[in-house]
Structure formats: structure tokens, C-alpha cells
């Protein structure tokens, strides 16, 4: 997706990427990026939260209007859950057995 954004931008179409994988998008380098700290699959907001989805889209439009330079990232103000443990799970490598054994 980032590569496509770059190609469009290179050819005169202004772009904004919305997404949840900040490191992957910034590693590639895109002109404008609206980042939500959410589980993968929700680049435009929490399912069925129309107010949040509206605010994120509006933020993307403002980033289009006002980004001063490429690699502009703006993080949305939303929190997926007060419990951050969801961040531990995706593609997690299990701990070695000796580290998960019960304490003596």
C-alpha cells in the first residue's frame, strides 16, 4: 500500500495512508500518514464507531491540506483499550520453556 501511495504521489496525485502498522509504513516512507494505535484491521477506526471513523477521516483530510513535507505522520488521539495487552499477542514468539516454568 505504501509503495502504491508513493507511485501515485510521484505522478501528481496527493495521497494519505491510514493505518495501524506505524513501523512498516514509516520504514517504507510515505508522503502523509494517519496512524491509529489499534490492532491491525482498523485503519479507519473502531468498527461501528461512526463518530470516531468520521473524526479519523476528517483528520486525514486535514493532513492532506496541511502536511509541510513528506513523511508527515499524525497519530489519532484514540485508545483501543485501557488494557494494552493486545499489543503483546500478534505473531508473538512463545517464551522458552525455562522462562515460563513456575517459580521455585
Amino acid at each position, binding site marked *: 500500500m505504501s509503495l*502504491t501511495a508513493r507511485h*501515485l504521489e510521484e505522478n501528481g496525485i496527493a*495521497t494519505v495512508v491510514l493505518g*495501524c502498522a506505524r*513501523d512498516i509504513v514509516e520504514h517504507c516512507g510515505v508522503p502523509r500518514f494517519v496512524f491509529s494505535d489499534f490492532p491491525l484491521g*482498523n485503519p479507519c477506526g473502531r468498527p461501528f464507531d461512526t463518530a470516531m471513523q468520521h473524526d479519523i477521516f476528517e483528520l486525514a483530510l486535514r493532513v492532506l491540506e496541511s502536511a509541510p513535507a*513528506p513523511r508527515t505522520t499524525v497519530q489519532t488521539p484514540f485508545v483501543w483499550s485501557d488494557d494494552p495487552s493486545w499489543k503483546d499477542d500478534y505473531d508473538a514468539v512463545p517464551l522458552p520453556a525455562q522462562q515460563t516454568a513456575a517459580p521455585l
Partner: protein
Amino acid sequence: MPASEYGTDSPNVDRTHKTFVDYIERTRAYYLARGYGNPYAYAYYRRHVPFTPLRKPLAESRVGIVTTAAPYQPDKGDQGPQAPYRMDVKFREAYAAPLEPAPDLRISHLAYDRKHTVPADLNAYFPLAQARQAVQEGRIGSLSPRFYGVPTTYSQRATISRDAPFILNECRRDGVEIAVLPAV
């Protein structure tokens, strides 16, 4: 967005997690732990990132949506919000398709977080309602009559040399001046 609208952080907010997940590091460790010695090399541009400033107000511009989601294929089994990872329903060719009637787009072929989210709402990964509202309110000039689908492929060369030029060409045909790209 005034800060008060979204509340303030409590003093005991978790500080042990970063504000983003290290997916590159996570997948590298995941595959190395399984004996694959050749982790995926994510696209990386250190110096050049293109930039096209807006040439006119959004209210006079045509917006197109570019997605990695796939049109539902009724003959191919479960692609719904509870479906497992469906590598077999991945699409290989970039496409453009009408926005009316509203497309039935699914993401069962993509690696989203199946433990912590259920993609039962199109607008969470394809901003159709949001974009239509923006047109109604005059915030953007118009929405392209078509949207654009780009496949997720292992080959970055295929994206750069084949898929992205196709998307550009179709966007130009529709007079798209601004592209919104939700990355699942």
C-alpha cells in the same frame, strides 16, 4: 479535536508498551523462531519520499479510495468476519470497480489481528460512509465513481512495476486528484 473531548489519561496509564507495535521486529522474530532463515525484507526508502502539495482546495477536488480489500466471492466459502486467514482467496490482479451500489469488500485474505478485532464493519477498513458524508457536507468536491484495489504481494517489484502503474492509470481515467489509502 479539543483534548477534553477524548478525556485525559489517568495517572496510572500503562507505560510499559510503546505507542505502536514493532511489526517488523515481531514478524522477523516469529519467522526466525520457526527456522526460516530469511526474514521478509520490508520496503525501505531511506532518502527519497515523493511529495505533491495540493493544487486546489479539497472542496474542489475529486477523491479516490485505494484498498487492499477484496470483493466478496460467493462461490469461495467463508470470507466473513470470523473466517480464518484465507490465503486462497487472495486476488492477484489490481482492479477498479464501481462504488455504486456499495461494494461488499472483505479482508479474510489479509493478516489482520484476528484475536483482537472482528472486521464486521466495512467503514472500519474502507471509509465509504465517511467519504460520502464529506461530499455531502462539501468538504471534498466529489468521490470517484470507482474505487481501486491493489493486491498484497510478496514481490515489491510487482507492486512497483505492475500494480501501482495500473492504479495510477485508472485514477487518471476517473479524474482522481487525491487518493486515500487505508492499509489493513
